[in-house]
């Protein structure tokens, strides 16, 4: 089990010595069950840091955002930033390193192992508790959560209320870290990976289209999925003409060459295109943090969509995103033995 005191002490040490500019971690939220991401810059704030099953967010996003802010501020503070990273978060950081988004020296990874469990799915928990309202959730041994409600604390089997992605997690231990808290547990044996995707594939074409058609129709195109995704770090989104950057030095030729692949209106066809482009652009890059699905205001099953190609990456191409920053990416590499029989 993770000793949070050690985590706090480590963060405090980093800030006291001034070796890092900021520590991105989790602290107790003032609004609701889930922890909130915190960027702390003072050693004294380190005491606020927590790590429990409510720490669902992928903090790799904050590294991406921090880079943008530093650039906007024209900051010349070149010290690294520290980040608390679960197994999935560390894979995201690895993908970002693979794509040279930042250098290894510029980030200090404080790895935290989820060990036998993972993080909580707030919706599942609410369903489980019925009328009771969860106030806090903590690890309770190897395979349970201690859930505190207004009626006291109870122990719930983790598998019952754990996030789907954690149930299918292939590596709960950070793959990349400068320091790691908690022990490595390789074999978790909860669900087989890609279970949900495989179940969906078994459905008929008609049913699948009926399902996705409904989902795409409901999309508001609020772009919350894009905003929360650490891989969607482009300044300009190819399928969102609103995001096109017009700078003083943008030439007329550049403006003329902007492609409006889809219409802005949240029509079904355009939303379908948007989500498919995102899924394609995430192929071999998505590390299954499922943040897109969690933040979607209309509950579109984006994790299901985006892990479809991750399944191909893993099973067909033996490609495991976020495993090695030195590997070429999935689509900028090939093998002679790649599938060929689908071609006529």
């Amino acid at each position, binding site marked *: 089990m993770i000793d949070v005191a050690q985590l706090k002490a480590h963060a405090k040490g980093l800030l006291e010595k001034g070796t890092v500019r900021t520590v991105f971690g989790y602290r107790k939220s003032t609004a609701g069950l889930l922890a909130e991401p915190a960027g702390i810059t003072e050693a004294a704030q380190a005491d606020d840091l927590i790590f429990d099953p409510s720490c669902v967010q992928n903090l790799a996003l904050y590294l991406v955002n921090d880079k943008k802010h530093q650039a906007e501020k024209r900051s010349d503070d070149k010290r690294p930033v520290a980040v608390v990273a679960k197994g999935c978060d560390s894979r995201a950081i690895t993908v970002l390193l693979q794509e040279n988004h930042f250098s290894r020296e510029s980030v200090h990874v404080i790895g935290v192992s989820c060990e036998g469990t993972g993080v909580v799915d707030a919706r599942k928990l609410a369903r489980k508790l019925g009328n009771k309202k969860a106030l806090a959730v903590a690890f309770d041994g190897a395979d349970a959560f201690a859930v505190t409600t207004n009626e006291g604390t109870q122990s719930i089997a983790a598998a019952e209320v754990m996030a789907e992605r954690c149930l299918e997690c292939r590596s709960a231990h950070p793959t990349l870290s400068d320091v790691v808290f908690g022990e490595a547990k390789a074999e978790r044996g909860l669900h087989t990976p890609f279970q949900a*995707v495989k179940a*969906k*594939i078994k459905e008929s*074409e*008609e*049913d*699948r*289209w*009926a*399902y*996705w*058609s409904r989902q795409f129709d409901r999309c508001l195109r609020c772009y919350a999925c894009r905003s929360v995704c650490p891989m969607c770090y482009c300044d300009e989104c*190819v399928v969102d003409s609103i995001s096109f950057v017009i700078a003083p030095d943008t030439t007329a030729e550049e403006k003329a060459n902007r492609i409006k*692949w*889809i*219409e802005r209106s949240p*029509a079904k*066809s*355009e939303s*379908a*295109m948007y989500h*498919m*482009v995102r*899924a*394609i652009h995430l*192929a071999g890059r998505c590390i299954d943090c499922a943040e897109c699905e969690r933040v979607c205001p209309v509950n579109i099953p984006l994790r299901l*969509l985006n892990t*479809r*190609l991750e399944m*191909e990456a893993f099973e*067909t*191409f033996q490609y495991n995103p976020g495993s090695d920053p030195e590997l070429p990416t*999935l*689509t*900028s*590499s*090939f093998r*002679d033995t*790649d*599938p*060929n029989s*689908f*071609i*006529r």
Partner: protein
Amino acid sequence: MAKVEQTAKDETGFEPKIVAFLCKWCSSAGSDLAGVSRLQYPSNAVPITIMCSGSMSPMFVLSAFNKGADGVLVSGCHPGDCHYLKGNFYARRKIYLVQKLLQFIGLENDRFRMSWVSAAEGAKFAQVMHDFVTDIKKIGPQTRLKAKRP
């Protein structure tokens, strides 16, 4: 040869709109050979010659369906024969992923196809065209991803 055209005809009168992305060096040259050999095939597919199947962006496929294509074909050099050494290998992996995604969201399976056609395979090109049009006529018009335009 006229027979090929005959069999592709359908009672419903539905004429599919197809975009065929052909690599310049093999498949486009193969279609030229089909032309020189006067092999007849249905006229539904409009060819767009690209430099290499490796330059085939998934955006092109999705966009074509969005714009109302009933079918999309990508055709390149056979593995090992790429004019640009290995562009078709990158294409193969990318197209495979796009195809899996389109199948997953429930677009009809036969609407997106890839083929290898060499510069010497004029007859194969005509056959690929004929088969594709026949198959798409069976499925009918593509409405799932097509944008409704005023």
